[in-house]
């Protein structure tokens, strides 16, 4: 055997390395698969169980008989109201705050306190946000139990996460781009508008939209601040509510039907869960589409 062949010959060490490589790949792959399974099981389970109740009418009509018959239209609309309004508040504030923190703020005690507050606010349980909403919006600001109070509470809850994800998206834009801009006499704002924002917008939108789905699923904070179990509304149309009154929401409706109402058909809570899941997944799908479209235009 020549030297050259000896160099590529099989050795115990080489065999061991390749075996480790193979084991690692399949093991990690298995773990990645494992997390898809619960999602499929959950979705499959609720769809099968809720199937008998699902129909177009179920989506588009008012509930009757204390919620145990009829549809869920007001709850669906209520959720859209709550989430939409909270987004109108939290997205601009969150994104602008993150731009300040990441692009303008110097590293001093004030910035550190703000950052610390953001991180800790993100960790506050949602029921505590709900209590805060009751104190701040329902009573102190005299909004009463209303869509406004509930939306603002949701906004406060989603704000820190939006700030964190936006900051991350901004920080992903290489520092060298900013320095190149500053070197030619661009102001910070010109740099942000022409270079930083266009290149981080996909990440920012993804972060914001993921918070939409989180807000849509929350029960505790809205239950305390503006969501009711049943509200008689007119029979059709989208503009069922005014902002200073209470509304229904999918999450609350599900909680109520599943635990409080007697005599509801067994498929009903599952059907509501399917709609709630569909709303969340739809919103997430939008986020993914956004990201794919914007990332295909990514420029470095």
């Amino acid at each position: 055997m020549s030297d050259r062949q000896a160099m590529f010959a099989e050795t115990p060490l080489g065999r061991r390395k390749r075996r480790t490589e193979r084991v690692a790949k399949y093991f990690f792959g298995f773990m990645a698969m494992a997390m898809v399974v619960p999602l499929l099981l959950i979705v499959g389970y609720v769809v099968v169980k809720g199937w008998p109740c699902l129909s177009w009418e179920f989506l588009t009509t008012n509930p009757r008989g204390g919620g145990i018959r009829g549809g869920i239209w007001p709850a669906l609309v209520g959720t859209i109201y709550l989430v939409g309004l909270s987004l109108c508040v939290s997205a601009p504030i969150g994104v602008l705050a993150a731009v300040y923190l990441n692009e303008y703020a110097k590293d001093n005690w004030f910035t550190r306190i703000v950052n610390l507050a953001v991180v800790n606010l993100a960790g506050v349980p949602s029921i505590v946000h709900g209590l805060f909403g009751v104190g701040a919006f329902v009573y102190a600001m005299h909004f009463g139990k209303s869509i406004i109070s509930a939306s603002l509470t949701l906004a406060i809850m989603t704000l820190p996460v939006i700030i964190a994800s936006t900051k991350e998206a901004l920080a992903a834009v290489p520092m060298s781009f900013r320095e190149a801009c500053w070197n030619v006499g661009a102001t910070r704002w010109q740099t942000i508008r022409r270079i930083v924002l266009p290149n981080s917008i996909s990440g920012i939108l993804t972060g914001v939209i993921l918070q939409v789905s989180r807000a849509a699923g929350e029960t505790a904070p809205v239950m305390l601040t503006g969501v009711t179990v049943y509200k008689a509304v007119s029979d059709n149309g989208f503009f069922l509510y005014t902002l200073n009154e209470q509304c229904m929401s999918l999450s609350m409706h599900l909680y109520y039907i599943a635990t409080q109402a007697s005599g509801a058909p067994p498929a009903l809570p599952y059907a509501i869960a399917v709609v709630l899941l569909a709303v969340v997944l739809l919103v997430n799908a939008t986020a993914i589409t956004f990201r794919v479209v914007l990332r295909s235009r990514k420029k470095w």
Partner: protein
Amino acid sequence: MSCAVKKIEVKDLRLSYAHREVLHGVSFDIVPNEIFAVIGPAQSGKTSLLRCLNRTIDFCANAFVSGTVRVDGEDVRELRNVYELRRKVGMVAPLPVGLPLSIYDNVAFAPRCAGISARSELDGLVEKCLRQAALWDEVKDRLDSLGTKLSGGQQQRLTIARALSHAPEVLCLDEFSIAIDPVTTMRIEDVLKELRSQMTIVLVTNLTQQARRLADRTLFLYNGDVIEIGSNDVIFSGHPANRKTYEYVNGIFG
């Protein structure tokens, strides 16, 4: 001596990052339309020195500057309009940075920031700057493609074109040739020789031969101290005032 004949006047410039001083009282003058080279080994503060000239040092949070830097007789640290200063003192960074924009927009970026929006004016400017940076012939048919997709050497020339686009009076080049092949380097060196009639050039370089070829005067910076400033005739003569200078430019140390 009046200030009028000094383009840049640096006096006792000290710079520290946190508590580590990297420039220990640097003083020198640069006269208009000269090519002034700064040589010295790594970590001797060459880049930091340049960043003090157009105040991009401001972006280092922990940098502390003392002493004065005057451009056209004005103390740069007392300027209100620092953006004007940066247009006046252009900077080419050592690593090429194509902005994530088209080639055209890369060059038109600075003029647009300065408020020029007429397409005809921009067109002329873009062509002129790309020609000056010896890049026009390679990219004239694809000005709409991305600047970041160019090769490293092309991006470096794009960076130079961008620095020229705001018509600086002083052009600082920080190791502009480390990403470019020798042939292109020579082309850009020729460009610099032409540009000196229009502007003052400050050239930071690790290639002592480049300083020798291009510069009128050379400053040898070593560990944050000026070892010697002199005309190239002296610095590269074989008997400069300081023995260290002789050893450095002849490759005996450093």
